[in-house]
């Protein structure tokens, strides 16, 4: 029962932290719950499909189908996160100004709601498929301990959801003016970590062979398979022994997002109509 609780808890917080950040980043956006709900629903459905077809997926591309699939959906999520941040940088300020004048609710970020829905879907799919495979394995084996293991799974789900909710409400205590700065920063680190993970999957699939030497090893300080290690892995992409390509992908993603945000953020005010002289 304890092992079921731990596995489900681990996977649920990993997806749940991402959902919490997305919810905080879209605070006050109409139809947000619908977009996030669709993401979670599609993610759960996708997780079941991936679990059912795990064998078939793995045998694609000379046995590297699983790695390619994981890399592809991670890269998709990185692109969506980048788009959200860049769009917010160019329109967020402008819209907040207009809306304040109009006295409306803040609706910044509505355009990229679908993108964040995709990110939620990817996160739930990745972690969810592991839960499905694990629980299916238990169910298939049968035995007396079944009920206990499933109860453990349910407890793990509840505990993981509680930690994710804590993340969300914690973020909401940040004053509205600074909240979007904080969520933009979190989303940038999330994207960088996912990019590094995508590179790892490409390496493990045999598609990327450059800079695979380990650059440093901090497993003595924080083990990646500990709970704090996993949380940091999800949030900021902590890896105990990264190789060169992972570090390059991580830094390149941060630089790309920051540069794009600066560029579009600067263009936005200039694009506004100038007052007549």
């Amino acid at each position, binding site marked *: 029962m304890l092992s079921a609780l731990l596995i489900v808890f681990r996977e649920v917080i990993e997806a749940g932290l991402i959902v919490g950040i997305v919810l905080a980043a879209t605070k006050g956006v109409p139809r947000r719950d619908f977009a996030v709900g669709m993401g979670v629903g599609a993610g759960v459905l996708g997780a079941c499909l991936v679990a059912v077809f795990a064998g078939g997926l793995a045998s694609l591309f000379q046995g590297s189908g699983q790695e390619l699939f994981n890399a592809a959906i991670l890269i998709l999520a990185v692109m969506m996160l980048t788009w959200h941040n860049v769009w917010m940088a160019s329109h967020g300020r402008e819209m907040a100004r207009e809306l304040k004048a109009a006295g409306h609710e803040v609706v910044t970020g509505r355009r990229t709601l679908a993108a964040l829905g995709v990110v939620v879907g990817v996160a739930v799919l990745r972690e969810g498929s592991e839960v499905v*495979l694990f629980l299916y*394995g238990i169910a298939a084996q049968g035995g007396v301990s079944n009920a206990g293991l499933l109860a453990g799974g349910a407890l793990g789900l509840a505990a993981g959801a509680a930690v994710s909710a804590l993340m969300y409400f914690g973020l909401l205590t940040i004053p509205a003016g600074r909240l979007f700065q904080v969520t933009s920063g979190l989303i940038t680190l999330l994207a960088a970590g996912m990019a590094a993970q995508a590179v790892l999957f490409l390496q493990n699939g045999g*598609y990327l062979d450059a800079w695979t*030497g380990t650059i440093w090893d901090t497993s003595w300080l924080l083990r990646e398979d500990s709970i704090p290690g996993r949380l940091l892995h999800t949030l900021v992409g902590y890896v105990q022994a990264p190789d060169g390509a992972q570090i390059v992908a991580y830094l390149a993603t941060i630089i790309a997002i920051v540069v794009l945000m600066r560029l579009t953020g600067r263009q936005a005010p200039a694009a506004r109509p100038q007052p007549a002289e």
Partner: protein
Amino acid sequence: MKRTFFFLLPLLMPAPAFADAAIPVTLQNHKFSPSEIHVKANSPTVIALTNKDATAEEFDSSALQVEKVVAGNSSGNVRIRALAPGRYPFMGEYHSATAQGVVVAK
């Protein structure tokens, strides 16, 4: 641009070549055999994992930086990067009570 590049990579590159001597490892009754795998240090290797159990297992190791699901009654290749000499534990995540092993690089 970087991302497009990664997307195109699979199309540009030939099918990933497997190391000529993949190390066979079997998983049965949620136990790895052999559970201690010796590899040459500083040279990449491939573990050919055959899962003889009916249920899926995830070969998981943060030390080796590998997560690979192998479905029930099937097999999969686990690529191990060039390792510095040392011991690198791994486990079957879904049955970690019994599915434990270690890669020893010398």
